[in-house]
């Protein structure tokens, strides 16, 4: 009996492929623009949004998308001033996570479900998707992917050299906000697959691997999406073969292993632009 005869595996494959495709594309730009910390923020917001949606009696996805999109727009409007102050951002995130814990207890005590709902949101439950959820997730993910591809050229320009792009009348600020909104939607999507705590790995690992392998932007973008989808498939297969491994762990383990191998094997090419390394 093959894996493909199980509906739950087919649903996971369908949703996972779409989500990995979108995450690979969005993640490449996140890494290129050094906005991984923003991705981290979005994952915290996704958790609270999902549980707020559940606790207030709405669909989980409604809360997810509402919270991440609102936060993405807010971050985009605050702009660079918000990026500078690590302490302020960290404080706000912890508080948002605390709120998430509040909604989790609210849901567990007043809702019909048990306390494991939070675990599903935090670590994902891709094997638990229904057919309708899987199709919707795949459709939204493909939409995000196409939107990223539509703005790829100006976004690349704006990410690599913002000042020159602005001088050439590329709408840098609007592009930044559009990208953050896409990243927010992608985070909401990825939460359904690997959970809000682990989506950072799905965004960062394939993109980091692709950037290590090639310097050409379009090739790296395609490679990032391809790697993400392949890693998703491999992770799902691994979890199917060894049921004691949760799918979220398998997907991330494969992605991390691929990144680690690339780091070890591919030598770092001398780069023309050396930026100061982020302080620990």
């Amino acid at each position, binding site marked *: 009996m093959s894996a493909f005869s199980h509906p739950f595996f087919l649903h996971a494959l369908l949703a996972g492929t779409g989500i990995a495709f979108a995450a690979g594309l969005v993640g490449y730009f996140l*890494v290129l*623009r*050094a906005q*991984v910390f923003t991705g*981290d923020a979005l994952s915290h917001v996704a958790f609270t949004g999902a549980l707020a949606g559940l606790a207030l009696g709405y669909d989980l996805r409604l809360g997810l998308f509402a919270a991440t999109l609102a936060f993405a727009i807010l971050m985009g409007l605050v702009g660079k001033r918000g990026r500078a102050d*690590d*302490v*302020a951002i*960290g*404080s*706000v*995130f*912890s*508080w948002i*996570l*605390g*709120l998430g*814990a*509040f909604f*989790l*207890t*609210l849901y567990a*005590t007043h809702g019909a479900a048990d*306390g494991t709902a*939070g*675990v599903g949101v*935090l*670590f994902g439950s891709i094997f638990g998707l229904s057919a309708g959820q899987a199709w919707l997730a795949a459709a939204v993910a493909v939409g995000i992917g196409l939107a990223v591809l539509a703005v790829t050229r100006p976004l690349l320009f704006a990410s690599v050299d913002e000042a020159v792009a602005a001088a050439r009348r590329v709408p840098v600020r609007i592009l930044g906000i559009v990208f953050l909104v896409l990243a927010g939607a992608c985070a909401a999507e990825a939460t359904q697959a690997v959970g809000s*705590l*682990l*989506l*950072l*790995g*799905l965004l*960062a*690992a394939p*993109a*980091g691997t692709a*950037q*290590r392998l090639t310097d050409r932007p379009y090739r790296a973008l395609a490679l990032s999406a391809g790697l993400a989808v392949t890693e998703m498939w491999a992770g799902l297969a691994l979890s199917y073969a060894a049921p*004691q*491994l*949760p799918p*979220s*762990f398998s997907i*991330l*383990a494969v*992605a*991390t292993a691929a*990144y680690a191998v690339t*780091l070890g094997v591919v030598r*770092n090419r001398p*780069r023309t*632009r*050396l*930026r100061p*390394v*982020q*302080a*620990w």
Partner: protein
Amino acid sequence: MNWAEANAGWSWNPAADIQQIWAFPFMVNAFRAGTVVAVLAAVIGWYMVLRKQSFAGHTLSVISFPGAACATLLGVSAGLGYFAFCVGGALVIAAIPRSGQGGRSQESALTGTVQAFLLACGFLFVALYKGFLGGVNALLFGSFLGITTTQVITLAVVAALALGILALIGRPLLFASIDGDVAAARRVPVRALSVVFLVLLGAATAEASQITGTLLVFALLVMPAAAAQQITARPALSLVAAVLIAVLVTWCALVTAYYSPYPIGFYVTTFAFGVYALARTGRALAAIRPDVSEEPANTPVGHAPLGGTP
């Protein structure tokens, strides 16, 4: 005292309420542990904010989750797992070379991947240890129930040790944190100090995780220190303020959490964030005030001769 009497709720008589809460040994232990953790986290966190190492603190707090999960899986005490993983993680971070190795984007991609992978490992340990799923929430979001006296003693000993080391290296560390280059030129061992501090940070994270949970460590580590540094620029004064804020926030959170069904992590973060927001607002208002007070003060002085005050 019977359960109905004990569960009577907040009576707006603080003395009676505290007496009622402290009638339970587990609450007394919770207060002891909370106080120890708050003091240690505030002091270490104060240096962390000064050194702009909150990202390292975040990474270490994430490591504490697989640590506790692994310890539970292996059947040893969770506290051992917290300390082993956090201090180990601190040593690894200290060993990572700081320069070269690609750009900032590669660095952040690597950090993000490592964090997500460690959390995934924690989840794997939890999944392998069946029937533990309810405990995940306690690990992630904190719990003050069931702290034993042995645990309190362990926390206190580790905290005393960490604070003792910090007291020894406090002055050179402050120097190295404020101006590393000048300190290095004055033969202060900057690199060794940074390694020692990271290990202390690991110990503080491991302690704070046991009260606030893995995800909310920032509440005790960053927020009191950040608020105190908003209030005053003088090092000694803001250090004392950070400790006071942390202890106060922890006590208030413990009392509130006792009377309500919601997790303590939520109250700690909310109170700490409230203090931080107040401090920032206060500072913003203080920055505005000179302009406001200047105008009425200047106008009479500038115009008095022209108008001819009677």
